[in-house]
């Protein structure tokens, strides 16, 4: 009879970690962080979004370390985040100031500023491209050169122009309510516990760092039938937003320039959702509300799903689970859900023994 399962943990762990290293190294190939940054844009974007830490370099490093596992990479980034002191909040970022790479509307053909497809897989055919098997650097460089030459022939304007929001156009027509800017300081869910009922700022933070698959699944459920939100995508835009931080010692009233600390690439979505309201004469009227979605990088599916869920959570009176903020917000975080599911692998000897005792006692009494 051996001494069961409780001795030798240290050695077992060491052996397991060694084996893990072996699995990563055994084929003697090395992927460079810069290669990941250059070729796995989408994966890098998703990792940054779910870990709510904007750094393509660190995201690529975590992907390398995690051998491409999303949940593992996000986990590493989140843990790293805990070691960083959080010293400043940025100024409010106005998304009208986005340097737009892509911007489309599903609501209007002819939006002010025009539709701009940019880079998207939407119109590619998803056929395996076997030509990628023998790609050559030289060939690729030639392709890029030719493309850049094409671009050079297009005359650029001297002035940077910003795209107006599609919703502004409808707002002028009175189809959307005009709200006063709400300058309440947003809740920081990484510094305080998520309160319920959750303020919208907290809800948006949880949604934007939610696991892509989970946010998409719940958004889909709501759209398909388990919810009451059927939106039209008013606007999807992808591009870079400049981020500024105030002078730390400034009083806020003087005219010291804020620090420009860089830019973040985001996907932003405004969905238009028809809702019925009552006017002053108590007659039913239709009106539009906006569902808002935003996330790091180019991840339009997640941003659209987020916009659906944002709108769902604005209407808690509906009985569908997608409208229940505790149901949605407490179950979409990658680190939390994967952690708790995987904890089932831990030994439960004591808890199971305790339940076993209970079941045996009940059975014994049944026989007496």
């Amino acid at each position: 009879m051996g001494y069961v399962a409780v001795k030798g943990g240290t050695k077992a762990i060491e052996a397991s970690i060694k084996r893990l290293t072996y699995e990563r190294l055994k084929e003697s190939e090395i992927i460079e962080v810069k290669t990941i940054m250059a070729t796995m844009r989408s994966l890098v974007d998703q990792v940054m979004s779910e870990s709510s830490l904007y750094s393509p370099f660190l995201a690529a490093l975590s992907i390398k370390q995690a051998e491409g596992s999303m949940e593992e990479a996000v986990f590493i980034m989140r843990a790293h985040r805990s070691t960083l002191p959080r010293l400043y909040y940025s100024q409010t970022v106005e998304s009208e100031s986005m340097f737009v790479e892509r911007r489309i509307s599903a609501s209007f053909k002819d939006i002010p500023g025009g539709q701009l497809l940019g880079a998207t897989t939407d119109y590619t055919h998803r056929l395996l491209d076997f030509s990628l098997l023998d790609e050559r650097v030289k060939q690729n460089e030639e392709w890029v050169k030719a493309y850049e030459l094409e671009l050079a022939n297009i005359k650029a304007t001297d002035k940077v122009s910003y795209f107006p929001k599609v919703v502004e156009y409808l707002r002028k027509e009175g189809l959307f309510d005009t709200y006063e800017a709400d300058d309440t300081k947003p809740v920081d869910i990484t510094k305080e516990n998520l309160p319920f009922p959750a303020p919208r700022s907290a809800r948006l933070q949880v949604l934007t760092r939610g696991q892509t698959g989970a946010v998409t699944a719940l958004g889909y459920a709501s759209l398909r039938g388990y919810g009451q939100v059927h939106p039209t995508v008013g606007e999807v835009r992808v591009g870079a937003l400049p981020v500024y931080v105030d002078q730390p010692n400034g009083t806020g009233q003087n005219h010291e320039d804020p620090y420009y600390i860089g830019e973040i690439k985001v996907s932003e979505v405004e969905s238009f959702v028809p809702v019925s309201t009552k006017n002053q004469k108590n007659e039913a009227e239709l009106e539009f509300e906006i569902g808002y979605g935003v996330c790091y990088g180019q991840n339009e599916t997640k941003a659209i799903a987020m916009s659906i869920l944002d709108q769902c959570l604005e209407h808690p009176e509906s009985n569908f689970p997608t409208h229940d903020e505790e149901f949605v917000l407490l179950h979409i975080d990658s680190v939390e859900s994967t952690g708790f599911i995987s904890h089932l692998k831990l030994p439960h000897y004591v808890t199971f023994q305790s339940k076993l005792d209970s079941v045996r006692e009940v059975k014994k009494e049944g026989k007496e």
Partner: protein
Amino acid sequence: MKTMTHFAFFDEGSKKEIRRATLKAVAIPGYQVPFASREMPIARGWGTGGLQLTLSLIGKTDIVKVIDQGADESVNAVSIKKLVQQTTNVALTENTEAASLIQSRHRIPEVPLTKEQILVLQVPTPEPLRQVEASEYITKRLHAEDEYSGVWLLLFEQIMKYGKTATGADHPVYVNGRYVMAPSPIPRFDNQKLHYSEALILLGAGREKKIYAVPPYTDVNSLAFEDYPFTVESFADHTCYLCGADDVFLDELIDETSGKSYYQCNDTSYCVDRLNSLKEKEAAPTHA
């Protein structure tokens, strides 16, 4: 690019926030204090609540012991210990009496704890009312209003269905006559060790973002009815096959050849201590 981790992993701001929540928890025994809960380098559900408490409390002179379901050498206990030591360089021990800070998953050591010690318990589900009410917003109100009929009904229904209460581990307790508290999934056997404990007991739930406490010498009673008193797991007629202990929580093991079950102390360091002292006793006469 190499970076060094701060002492005890966290930045000082995070430690302060956790300590503030802890102080509040000590001031209101059994009340679940919400806190921000940092993501840790170990997974949610794997002891991050306990670990955050440990790392916010630890000082250079502390001696740390970590146990998982009774065992010091269980893989996850080893993993947590490794992390604590790598980020703090403090001394580790398996000896319960030698430890100043004990982090444990689902057991309270067999050796009575002293006022010099702090016990940190890892908690998966801090809400004792979760089984009867899914919503956090509502359970928070129920606690505020001292409205615990749901959990009493839960026990009552078990009696109606099975003839007795049929809770496993995590049997709810009343703390200081006010808050009903989930003692974390410690076996019912350990519930009595919470009552008037000399050591400070802190409970941390990382994923659920709650910290709560049983301060020293606090009244802790397991929920039960007068005619259906609280009972603990029974190991009648069984003793540890290694050290012979008969008054401890035992692990049930199955002998591969005979198919029969045999028993062993769940608290491994307690068992080893007993074996060592038995050996000393046996050895003593030969010196004489």
